C-alpha cells in the first residue's frame, strides 16, 4: 500500500513540476519569446561556467576524500614499475583532461549567442588538424613504449630458482599446492578429482606427487624478496587470481594452465606497521564472474621471511600422507588444522 502511495506521490510531483515548467513557457510567450530566449541563453551560458567550477571543485574534494581510503603502496617488484607507469599515464591524461574540459566550458560561456556578433565561418585548417593528429600520436607512442616494456617484463619467463606454487580455483574457493621437498609439482588429471581425498586430481603413479602439500583454503605463503611463479588452473568455470596489492592478475581457465610471476617486497608484518592496521592482510580475490558465490571467493596471502616460511613448511604434511595415514604410521606430529575461521560464510 505504501508503495502505491509512493508511486502516486512521484506522479503528482511530476504533474506539478510539468505545470510549473509549462507556465514558465507561458511567461515566455507573454514577455515575447525572443526576449525570453535571450535571457535564458545568458543564464545557461553562465551556468556552464558554474558547472565547470563545481566540476573541478568536486574532483579535488573527491580526491581528498578518497586518498586516505586507498590501498597501501605496491608490495611487489612489478607493482613498483606499475605505479610509476600509472603516474605517467595519469599525468598525460590529466593534462589533456583539464585542457579540453576547461576549453569546452569556457567556450560555452565565452561564445554564447548575444545577438550582436556576426557568425564566423571557419570550416577547416590543415595546419590545426595536422597538429592535433600528430601530438596525440606522439603521446600514444610514448605510452605504448613504456607500457610494452613493463608488459614484457611482467609476462616474461620467471627467473630461475623462483618458488613455484599452484593455485586452483573452484566454485567457490581456492586450493593451493606446494611442491614439497623435491621442489616439483606432480602430474594431475581432472578425471582423478574427488572431493574426498584428491582435490586436484593428482596422479599417484607420479612419485613427484607424494610430497606435494595442499592447502584447501588456498592460502598462499610467499617469501619476501624471493620471486614466486604461480601456476594457475581451474576445476570448473573461469576464475581469476586477483592480487591487487601486488598489481597482478591472471585468469584461471579450465583446461588451460596460465602463469604469472612476481617478487613480493614487503612482508605482511611490515605492512601492518606501514598501514597502522593491525588486521591488515593481503587478499587474493576472484576477479572473474564465476557464479553466485563469486564475491566470497577469497584467500589469504602471507608474505613472510625465509625462516618463517621454512618453519611453516616443516609443519605441513603432504596431501598423500594426510589421506593415507595407514601407509605412514610413524609420521608425527599431526598437522595443525587449517584456519577456517577466516573463510567467508556464504550468504544463502
Amino acid at each position, binding site marked *: 500500500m*505504501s*508503495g502505491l502511495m509512493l508511486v502516486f506521490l*512521484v506522479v503528482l510531483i511530476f504533474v506539478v513540476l*510539468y505545470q510549473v*515548467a*509549462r507556465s514558465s*513557457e507561458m511567461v515566455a510567450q507573454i514577455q515575447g519569446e525572443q526576449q525570453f530566449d535571450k535571457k535564458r*541563453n545568458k543564464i545557461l551560458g553562465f551556468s*556552464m561556467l558554474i*558547472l565547470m567550477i563545481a566540476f573541478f571543485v*568536486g*574532483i579535488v574534494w*573527491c580526491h581528498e576524500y578518497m586518498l586516505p*581510503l*586507498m590501498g597501501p603502496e605496491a608490495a611487489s617488484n612489478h607493482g613498483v614499475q*606499475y605505479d610509476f*607507469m*600509472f603516474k605517467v*599515464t595519469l599525468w598525460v*591524461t590529466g593534462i*589533456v583532461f583539464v585542457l*579540453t574540459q576547461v*576549453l*569546452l566550458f569556457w*567556450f560555452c560561456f565565452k*561564445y554564447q549567442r548575444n545577438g550582436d*556578433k*556576426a*557568425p564566423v*565561418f*571557419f*570550416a577547416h*585548417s590543415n595546419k590545426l588538424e595536422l597538429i*592535433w593528429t600528430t601530438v*596525440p600520436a606522439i603521446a600514444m607512442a610514448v605510452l605504448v613504449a613504456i607500457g*610494452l616494456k613493463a*608488459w614484457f617484463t611482467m*609476462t616474461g619467463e620467471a627467473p630461475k630458482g623462483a618458488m613455484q606454487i599452484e593455485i586452483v580455483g573452484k566454485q567457490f574457493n581456492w586450493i593451493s599446492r606446494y611442491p614439497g621437498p623435491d621442489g616439483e609439482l606432480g602430474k594431475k588429471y*581432472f578425471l582423478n578429482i574427488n*572431493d574426498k581425498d584428491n582435490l586436484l*586430481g593428482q596422479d599417484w603413479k607420479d612419485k613427484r606427487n607424494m610430497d606435494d602439500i595442499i592447502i584447501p583454503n588456498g592460502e598462499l605463503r610467499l617469501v619476501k624478496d624471493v620471486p614466486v611463479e604461480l601456476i594457475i588452473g581451474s576445476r*570448473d*568455470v*573461469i576464475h581469476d587470481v*586477483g592480487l*591487487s596489492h601486488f598489481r597482478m*592478475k591472471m*585468469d584461471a*581457465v*579450465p*583446461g588451460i594452465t596460465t602463469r604469472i610471476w612476481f617478487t613480493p617486497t614487503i612482508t605482511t608484518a611490515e605492512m601492518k606497521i606501514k598501514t597502522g592496521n593491525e*588486521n591488515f592482510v593481503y587478499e587474493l*580475490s576472484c*576477479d572473474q*564472474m564465476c*557464479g553466485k*558465490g563469486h*564475491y566470497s571467493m577469497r584467500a589469504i596471502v602471507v608474505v613472510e621471511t625465509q625462516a618463517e616460511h621454512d618453519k611453516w613448511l616443516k609443519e605441513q604434511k603432504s596431501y598423500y600422507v594426510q589421506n593415507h595415514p595407514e601407509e605412514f604410521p610413524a609420521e608425527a606430529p599431526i598437522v595443525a588444522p587449517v584456519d577456517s575461521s577466516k573463510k*567467508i560464510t556464504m550468504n*544463502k
Partner: protein
Amino acid sequence: MSNEAAIHTDVHTHDSHGHHDDHAHHEHKQHFITKYIFSQDHKIISRQFLITGIFWAIVGGLMSVFFRLQLGFPEQTFKVLTMFLGDWAHGGKMDPEMYYGLITIHGTVLVFFVLTGGLSGTFANFLIPLQIGARDMASPFLNMLSYWFFAIAGVIMFSSLFITTGPASGGWTTYPPLSALKEASMGSGLGMDLWLVSMALFVVSSLLGGLNYIVTILNMRTKGMSMTRLPLTIWALLFTAILGVLSFPVLLSAAVLLLFDRHAGTSFYLSEIYVAGKALPNVGGSPILYQHLFWFLGHPEVYIIMLPAMGMASEILATNSRKPIFGYFAMILSLIGITLLAFLVWAHHMFVTGMSPFLGGVFVLLTLLIAIPSAVKVFNWLTTIWKGNIRFTVGMCFALGFVSLFISGGLTGLFLGNSALDIHLHDTYFVVAHFHIVMGISAFFGMFAGIYHWFPKMYGRFMNNTMGYIHFFITFVGSYVIFWPMHYEGVAGMPRRYYDFSNWESFKQFGELNQMISIAAIIVFIAQLFFVFNYFVSIWKGKKVTDPNPWQSNTLEWTTPIKPGHGNWDGEIPEVHRWAYDYKDDGNGGDFIPQHIPLKEGEESH
C-alpha cells in the same frame, strides 16, 4: 524513381495529384494497425524503436536501482525488493542469484536493446531518409521486420525474468563454462537458453536494419546529394551499420556454438571440467574461443553505440553554434579510422586470459592507435563551438555534455588499453567507471540530444524546455557523482560483480562511498523518469511547432511539412546544391543557407 516505387501503396496519391497540386494532400485513410503497428513508414518504425528502447531503459535502470540498494546498503532490507522480486528477495534481502541475474540483464538490455536497438534503430530509421532526401528506406518491409524481430527478442528476454530458475546470470558477456553448464549456476538453465535465443533474434533484427541503412544511404540520395554533402549524422550511421553487419554474425556463431555445447554434447568451449561432484566427458575445447568470438562483436559494438551519438552531436553542435562543423573531411576520416580499428582491437578485453604476451603487445598498439581519431574528433568539436554563437537549446546542452563525458571516459581508456596497466585494473570498478561514462552515459547524452533536437520533427510539438534543462543538469552532475569515485575504487583493486564487500579487508572501507553512489543513482534514475514523463506528455500537450525549421538548420529534414506524411515531401524531393554546414551570412541578414538553396553567383561550394 525507385524510391517512389518502394512505397507505392500510399505515396501513389502524392504522385498522381501531388506534383501539380501542392495543397491537395490526400492521405489514404489507413487502418490503425497498418499505420501504427505493422507500419512500413520509417518515421513510425523509428518511434516504435524509440518507445521500445525507453521501455527497456526503464527496466534496465530499475534493475540498477535494485542492485545499487544491495551494494550501498548490504545490511538492510527493503520491502520494495520483495515487492518486485518476490521470493528472490525474501524478507527484503536480495538473493545473490538474483543479484547476478539483474546485473546480467541490466548490461544486456542497455547495451543491446537500448543503446543499439533504441539508438541506431531510432535515429537511423528517422534520419536517413529525411536527411538524404528519400521517401523511405530501400526496403520498408524489411525495415518493419527488423523492428518486429527486435520486439520478439525483447519479449523473450523479458519472459526470462519470470521463470523459476531465473534469468541468465553469468554477466552480460556470458562466458562459458559458467554459462554452458546448468550445474554451475541456476541462471545457466532455461534462462540462458532464452538469453541466447533472444540475442539470436536481435542479431537478425540488427542485420535486417543494417543492410537496409547501408543500401538506402548508398543508393537513394536525392539529386545533388553527393557523399561529401551528407551531414555527419548520416556518415556516422553508415559506419554504424557497416560495423553491425560485419560483426553481429560472429556473435550469432558464438551463440550457436554455445547452444550446441549446452544441448548437443559438443565441446567447443569445454575441457577438463569437474563440476557439482562429477567430471564431465568434454575435452579439447577452449573457453577462450568464446571470448574471441564474443569480443569480435563486443568491441565493434561499443562503436556501434558511440558512432550515432558522435554523428548527432556533430550535427547539433554545428547547428546551435551557428558555425560549420570544423574539419568535415577530418571527421569522416576519423570515422573511417575508428571503424577499421574497431575490428582490430577486440583482444584488449582479454589481456589477462593467458594469451600470448606478444599478441597482447600488438593489441596494445592497435588499441592506443584508436585514441588518435577520437582525439581528432574532440578537438574538432571544440573548434566548432569556438567563436560560435552558441544557443543553449536542451539538445545543445546534452551535446556539450556528451563531449565532456566522451573526453572523461575516453581518457581512462588509455589506462585499460595498455596491457601492463590493465593487468591490475582489469575487472575492477575502474572498468565499470570507464565504460559507463564513455559508452553508457555519453551515448545516452547523444541520444537525449537527438531526441530533444528532433522531437519537433517527430511529433510536430516541442518537448518542455524547463523540464529538459532540469533533466540535463541532474543527469550531468549525477553521472559524474556516480561514476567518478568508482575510478578510485578500481585503482584500489575493488572487483566488479561483487554482491557484498563487507568481508574484504581490502575493500570494505568504501562502504560509505557505495551508499553515496547508490543514493545518487536513485536520484538520477528518477530524473530519467522525469524525462519519460516529459516525452509522453509533450507528444500530446507540448507546444506546437509553427516554423517548419525551428532550429534554423541546413539539413533536408526541415524542408518537409511540419508533420510529414508517409513519403515525407508533398511535392518533389528537393534537389541539393551545397553541403550540410553552410552556416554563414546568407546576404539577407540570416546566418544559414539550407542545402536545397542553389549556389549564388560566384559562390564557391565547399
